[in-house]
């Protein structure tokens, strides 16, 4: 497929989407401090261009799966953000009825398959979604995301091989944000060019600058086209950065403030806003209107989640088995 032009509309949508994801998650971290969100909370802050660029290359029916840094992906795919906020607060109107929490967002309706907490666990699942689409003769592609830390798991390497062997319609995206918790990429292998892991499997592979949604989109469009036309998998190393700690309790001794500041100069939201301004795609007023819309929607999400009740304790026993009368041990 020829590349889609990056029009004014695309830029404005990217700006509004990415700003919303950022503000939505800023709000979650405030709610975490108020102990309304508990457990782990891994923010996507800084990595938004990976999602924005990917979404533009996707067609209806294409699928996405990722790890636990997963609040905004289902929103990008069309899930109601109010339900994501409710899930984060453990409320019954959440996407998993309050059972999954921060690490386990799912939206089958919008083709988002989670939301996975065991590092590397989702990688074969992504290839499996693609396997089923191919099996059923469907022309869909599955985008499978993972962190830089996850590529050191056996599950990654086994899946790379099988995906090539069976020519599956899947795109593997390594979101290289520099660190796996406190461990930098260079401390996890004798090489830092992670994309080269594709070479051993003869899988098309490349690095992309993932602070800019345009470069992400271009690489993704090629990869998605290849998969859809029967050309098999691609491995993309999306070079990005996370501005916040790994989860909420992380003193971040493993990096300097200067390093974070350097990357903040490359903030994807700023990049997109600058281009909007350079090209006169929007007036100051129009931009303010977008900002206000974003603010209002975040508030709506919080209001909705606050008003939703916690699940009744009976809910614990629901959705373990499809079988309705499964005989649980209750004594």
């Amino acid at each position: 497929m020829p590349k889609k032009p990056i029009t004014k509309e695309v830029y404005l949508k990217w700006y509004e989407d990415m700003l919303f994801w950022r503000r939505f998650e800023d709000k979650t971290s405030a709610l975490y401090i108020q102990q309304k969100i508990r457990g782990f909370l891994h923010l996507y802050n800084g990595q938004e261009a990976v999602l924005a660029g990917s979404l533009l290359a996707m067609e209806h029916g294409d699928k996405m799966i990722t790890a636990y840094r997963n609040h905004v992906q289902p929103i990008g795919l069309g899930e109601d953000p109010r339900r994501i906020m409710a899930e984060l607060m453990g409320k019954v109107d959440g996407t998993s009825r309050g059972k999954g929490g921060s690490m386990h967002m799912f939206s089958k309706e919008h083709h988002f398959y989670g939301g996975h907490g065991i590092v590397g666990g989702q990688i074969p699942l992504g290839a499996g979604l693609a396997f089923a689409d191919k099996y059923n003769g469907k022309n869909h592609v599955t985008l499978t995301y993972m962190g830089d830390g996850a590529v050191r798991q056996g599950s990654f390497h086994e899946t790379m091989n099988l995906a090539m062997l069976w020519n599956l319609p899947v795109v593997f995206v390594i979101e290289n944000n520099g660190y796996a918790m406190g461990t930098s990429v260079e401390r996890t292998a004798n090489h830092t060019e992670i994309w080269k892991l594709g070479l051993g499997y003869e899988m098309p592979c490349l690095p992309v600058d993932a602070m800019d949604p345009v470069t992400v989109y271009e690489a993704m469009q090629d990869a998605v086209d290849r998969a859809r036309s029967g050309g098999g998998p691609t491995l993309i190393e999306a070079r990005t950065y996370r501005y916040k700690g790994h989860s909420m309790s992380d003193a971040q001794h493993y990096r300097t403030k200067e390093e974070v500041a350097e990357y903040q100069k490359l903030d994807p939201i700023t990049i997109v806003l600058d281009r909007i301004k350079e090209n006169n795609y929007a007036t100051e007023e129009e931009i303010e209107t977008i900002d206000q819309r974003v603010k209002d929607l975040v508030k709506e999400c919080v209001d909705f989640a606050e008003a939703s009740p916690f699940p009744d304790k009976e809910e614990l026993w629901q959705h373990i088995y499809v079988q309705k009368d499964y005989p649980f041990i209750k004594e």
Partner: protein
Amino acid sequence: MRIIQFREAVCEAMSEEMRRDERVYLMGEEVAEYNGAYKASKGMLDEFGPKRVIDTPIAELGFAGISVGAAMNGLRPIVEFMTFNFSMVAIDQIINNAAKMYQMSGGQLNVPIVFRGPTASAGQLAATHSQAFESWYANCPGLKVVVPADPYDAKGLLKAAIRDEDPVLVMESEQMYGDKGEVPEEEYIIEIGKAKVKRQGTDVTIVSFGKILKVAFAAAEELEKEGISCEVIDLRSVRPIDYDTIIKSVKKTNRCVIVEEAWPLGAISSELTYMIQKRAFDYLDAPVIRVNTADTPAAYSPTLIEEFLPSPEKVIKAIRAVLYKD
């Protein structure tokens, strides 16, 4: 006596054994430069250097297996899992290699290795991050499984585990690392496989292990106000199990409640109940009752995790039931 935290007791045990024996090393995710995900190896990189305190990538199968191999060739590894939930990625190496090697080689190759880290729930962490696999590992011959519940036991048992010639799992808890307790300055070792009566009582025996003992103690304290006297036994090891200590107590109190943070089917509580009915049948004045987690995965919401976990209220209810007091 000196009071220290659980995590400091763990750190002292590892450090003392590493000073004493060059063959001992510590390996795992974030154990060195980050000082441990839960700071249980704080300062160890500084003291022992990167040769012996080794950060790994996220590759549990790889580093667990490499350490089993190293143990087959004369080293004495301590492998830390950031939590035992992640040991599932490595379980093949533990069950098929570490546990079997001595037997398969007809006694030629033993595997003196320790796998340690936190187990079970730690707040609202949802299904994959709240699991207790003590009974899974305890099911496997060839392994020993130790579950300390206070700093004193943590230190003494971990030192014993490191000196043991067989593979030992030491299962801790994120929710115990900050607990404080008396730990003497002088060296001591606690023999693996000995339960401990941690509270004397006459009316009912409560058997438990690990972090959830806190719930058992809370129930015992509450009931004491009503004049119900609970004896609380800390198993400390779930393979081997010290049946004698339990049977002796049950023969005295004639009643037993087991508190276990794990799913009920095929649990340690099932095993204990079997042995109690077999060896103390005529002494029982009531059926043994257990309080386990729900027969479901853990769930995130506060209302659901509360329903999932054993609580003092649930234990009190069970104790009243064995005393026919409800």
